[in-house]
């Protein structure tokens, strides 16, 4: 089907506002007499707070309030940005307090100050005296799971969750196999490093409601969780989300808002801003889980996989956040890539005294696909097969039904992705060329594949709202509860509306601010759901407006709506394309016709009970400097089956960003901590090696566009997927180049050099 606006490289609707600095972010909302909030953080990773003396801080001129756990509600709440569940058994783990009387990681918030300005607040923090009773610090899951380990929370052996799955007869599968492969793989703690740190401003309005402006991916969920944490009715909280400078999952969690709310309450409702510095953001928001895997796979001689067993130990840090669902979710998405008879997935998620791990782009999949795609390369080498052949032999086909969730794959373009990527990187040619590399610099090729979902159905509710108003001039406003966080969702929603209503994109005014008082309900930006889930709500809303417009024209002209269409801001005859009247004329009538005036709007909600699988592959070519251990990515391509692409330029942008994140994950990024004290060593962007643009090679992005019948215009997810497979593809390329398998991230120069030396590749 041919479209006019969908599929075009439209300029993003917020481009000019953002590049000219006119777009307002949370920090740009300056209330009068804005007070500043600051947090006092525990220097101990695990300690009881025995006593806090805040008298001297209270006495400091300019200090408006000093808060400790004794001054704030003592209600345990969950911070995870999931939809609420009516089933109490399905709710998130409630283990967090606004301010704690037990520090569980270095940086845990034990007290807070509200003051006239930052310097006074900081000075006041230094005047607060806290008496701690240190406990044993547990930084590794092994230590935390010891029978005699102290409990971080009141759960047995510090285990938060063990939710896995199993299908088929694994013993039989292994017995049927000709070869058994086993491997261990380990990922590291990394951080989102979104450009805008976490920040919220809160005040109490003239009607006694708490109004919070915050940089969040999930405004409606923030409203609920703030109310829960404070123990007040949900309607007493109003949350606004202005433009936001990135999230990547860091803001799919409620980190600063409840404290901002109690801060304003502590100062009689005056406005308070709580803004984290980069250093704070890197220790006290969320990180990506470090997960260790042990994998055992049975294969036939030809490479056909018979059965897989994956054991995983996930280090979730000091609080649950999303921890209970991340290992499980990664395992769930993994099930859709390979057709196997038997699969057993056994994750254990463990509390430790480290910064809290939570949602981050890919939500458990970068970890499991790193492990398994490294493992696939190892299997291919063990069997003397080309990894592409091994992959193709085992991929699922369209029509595959997940044995656990019973969800059916209606479109699967993984084979097409692999074929395209293979050509782009000139796999066959270069594989021959690099076969017998010698010398100090060696090149190699690697590839890795993934499967991903579009949203979270059936695990969570997938509800999304859209509202459209037809203006007098034939333009429309579009309001969604879904959040633009830089990924371009406002633009693709606008394109969908423009397509349905026959409008140019600039006649669709997308309201980028979400306000829980005004915006339709939507759970927000996560799970790569918005284009697929919210997109359907938007399409339905646009179709409803279109139907109302054509009905109205029917009334005006006595021409049946079915005979009419909208195109180029005009009402046309469907059969001939002949113009009946301009849309603006109809619009004006809908407002001002003395008899029939009835402005056209739609307010739609979509409760999606479908989930389309998206697929893709990374191909990478590297050069390894054996003598220094430096790995250079020479070429890298991501090919995605994300259904139809609404805006190729934005889609490429997603791929570029995701791949660069994946390159950092592979080669340089790691949040380091002292294993004894739990203190983070590099919580700043100098010491945390996020790649710069100079470190990022040209990134090739391509798409195989198979329409999925369940998605609006045939779309599937794309937001998170680009970040999933660069790391294993690069690892496999390094293995190809050097013959040495790196089963631990990141592959930074010292680590690579040391292992090459151990392997005897260099002296």
């Amino acid at each position, binding site marked *: 089907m041919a479209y006019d606006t969908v599929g075009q490289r439209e300029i993003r609707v917020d481009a000019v506002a953002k590049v000219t600095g006119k777009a307002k972010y949370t920090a740009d909302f300056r209330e009068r007499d804005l007070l500043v909030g600051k947090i006092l953080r525990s220097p101990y990773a695990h300690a009881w707070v025995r006593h806090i003396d805040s008298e001297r801080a209270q006495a400091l001129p300019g200090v408006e309030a000093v808060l400790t756990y004794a001054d704030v509600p003592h209600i345990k709440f969950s911070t995870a940005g999931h939809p609420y569940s009516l089933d109490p058994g399905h709710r998130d783990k409630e283990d967090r307090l606004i301010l704690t009387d037990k520090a569980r990681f270095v940086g845990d918030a034990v007290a807070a100050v509200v003051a006239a*300005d*930052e*310097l006074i607040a*900081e000075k006041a923090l230094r005047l607060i005296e806290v008496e701690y009773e240190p406990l044993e610090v547990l930084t590794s899951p092994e230590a935390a799971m010891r029978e005699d380990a102290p409990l971080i929370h009141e759960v047995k052996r510090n285990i938060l969750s063990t939710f896995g799955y199993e299908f088929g007869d694994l013993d039989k599968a292994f017995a049927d196999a000709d070869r058994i492969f086993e491997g261990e793989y380990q990922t590291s703690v990394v951080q989102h490093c979104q450009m805008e740190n976490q920040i919220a401003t809160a005040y109490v309005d003239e009607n006694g409601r708490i109004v919070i402006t915050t940089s969040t991916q999930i405004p409606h969920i923030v409203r609920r969780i703030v109310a829960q944490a404070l123990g007040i009715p949900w309607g007493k909280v109003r949350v606004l989300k202005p433009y936001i400078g990135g999230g990547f999952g860091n803001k799919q969690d409620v980190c600063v808002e409840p404290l901002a709310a109690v801060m304003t309450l502590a100062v009689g409702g005056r406005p308070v801003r709580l803004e984290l510095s980069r*250093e704070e953001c890197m220790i006290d928001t969320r990180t990506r889980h470090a997960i260790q895997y042990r994998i055992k796979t049975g294969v036939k001689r030809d490479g056909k996989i018979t059965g897989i067993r994956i054991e995983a130990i996930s280090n979730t840090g000091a609080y649950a956040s999303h921890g209970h669902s991340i290992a499980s979710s990664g395992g769930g998405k993994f099930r859709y890539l390979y057709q196997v008879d038997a699969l057993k997935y056994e994750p254990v998620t463990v509390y430790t005294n480290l910064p809290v791990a939570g949602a981050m782009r890919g939500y458990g999949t970068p970890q499991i696909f790193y492990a398994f795609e490294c493992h696939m390369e190892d299997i291919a080498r063990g069997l003397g097969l080309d990894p592409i052949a091994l992959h193709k032999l085992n991929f699922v086909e369209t029509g595959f039904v997940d044995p656990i969730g019973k969800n059916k794959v209606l479109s699967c373009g993984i084979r097409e992705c692999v074929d395209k990527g293979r050509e782009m990187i000139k796999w066959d040619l270069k594989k021959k060329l690099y076969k017998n590399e010698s010398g100090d610099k060696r090149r190699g090729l690697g590839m890795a594949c993934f499967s991903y979902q579009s949203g979270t159905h059936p695990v969570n509710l997938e509800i999304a709202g859209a509202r459209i108003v037809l203006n007098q001039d034939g333009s429309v406003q579009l309001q969604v509860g879904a959040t633009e966080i830089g990924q371009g969702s406002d633009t693709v929603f606008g394109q969908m509306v423009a397509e349905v209503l026959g409008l140019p994109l600039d006649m669709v005014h997308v309201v980028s601010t979400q306000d829980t008082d005004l915006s339709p309900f939507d759970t927000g930006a996560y799970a790569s759901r918005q284009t697929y889930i919210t997109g359907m709500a938007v399409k339905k809303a646009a179709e409803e407006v279109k139907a109302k417009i054509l009905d109205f024209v029917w009334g005006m002209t006595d021409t049946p709506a079915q005979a009419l269409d909208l195109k180029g801001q005009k009402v046309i005859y469907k059969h001939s394309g002949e113009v009946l009247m301009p849309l603006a004329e109809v619009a004006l009538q809908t407002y001002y016709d003395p008899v029939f005036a009835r402005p056209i709007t739609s307010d739609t909600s979509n409760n999606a009970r479908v989930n389309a699988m998206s697929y893709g592959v990374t191909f990478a070519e590297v050069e390894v400097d054996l*003598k*220094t251990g430096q790995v250079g990515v020479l070429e890298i391509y991501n090919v995605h089956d994300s259904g139809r692409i609404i805006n190729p330029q934005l889609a490429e942008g997603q791929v570029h960003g995701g791949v660069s994140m994946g390159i950092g994950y592979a080669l*340089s990024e790691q949040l*380091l901590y002292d294993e004894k004290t739990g203190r983070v*060593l*590099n919580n700043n*962007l*100098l*010491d945390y*090696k996020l*790649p*710069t*643009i*100079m*470190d990022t090679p040209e990134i090739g992005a391509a798409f195989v566009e198979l329409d999925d019948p369940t998605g609006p215009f045939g779309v599937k997810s794309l937001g998170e997927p680009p970040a999933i497979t660069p790391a294993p593809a690069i690892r496999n390329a390094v293995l190809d180049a050097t013959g040495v398998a790196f089963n631990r991230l990141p592959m*930074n*120069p*010292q680590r690579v*050099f*040391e292992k090459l030396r151990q392997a005897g590749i260099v002296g």
Partner: protein
Amino acid sequence: MFNISKYDEAGSLDGALEFLSEHPAAKVIAGGTDVVIKMQGGKLREVELFSIRGLAELKGSKCSPDGAVLLGPLVTFSQIAGDPFLQDNIPVLTQAALSMGGPQIRNIATIGGNICNGAVSADSAPTLLALNAELRLQSARGERKVPLREFYLGPGKVDLRPGELLTGIMVRPEEYLGYHGHYIKFAMRKAMDIATLGVSVLCRVEEGKVLRGVRIALGVAAPTPIRCPEAEAFAEGKTASAETLREIGRLAVRSTKARTSWRASQEYREHLVAELVPRALQEAMRAAGGEGNA
């Protein structure tokens, strides 16, 4: 919001020296790329700042008729990197300047600040050490000249006395004319990073492969930027074979006092010295039009 208790600006060099003699606690600020970060991190609190940014006397670089180069301490890294005279005559210095930070930082960070900050990772340090640069230090009481090599006292510690300002960085003609050099900044990133190891070499090359006047300077290989006298002495007059270069690298390690930190192990840093010193020498020889393909 920064914790600044007082802020003054210098109007003239004499005025600045007088001010500093009266306000020994004042913290001198030029580009601010180190000082502001220390304030932001809480390492400097309620600081009395004294800005010398406006001092025309300390800006720009000069070359006297005999070829002596005098760099004003307020010369920015961008200015060094873009200076046509330096690009033609001391390209190893422009190369080092370009390796520092990113464009915004290079536009404001000054060479004087980079030296006086005393950072072992300072990107200008190894090259200026290799060039035998001499510093001019002035106070209300007079001027003294100190070789850069003697200026570094320890990590973050330099021989800058109370009331003193760095007023010039001198490179004599005999230290660069006829020399070719190369700087390798080994870091985890290609921009916005501190060096894991900085290697700067200078040499003359005779008959395409005979090494003369080799200077090897390292950053982050000891508590201060250092030279490698043993390796330099060994290299004098040697024909640059692969084996000679390897030996120079090995000897360079002897001058180092690297330590293990979470940033890199001592062993790895030492290995990098042994590996990168020969690489830098090869590049310098290539720049000299020599063989450099050992």
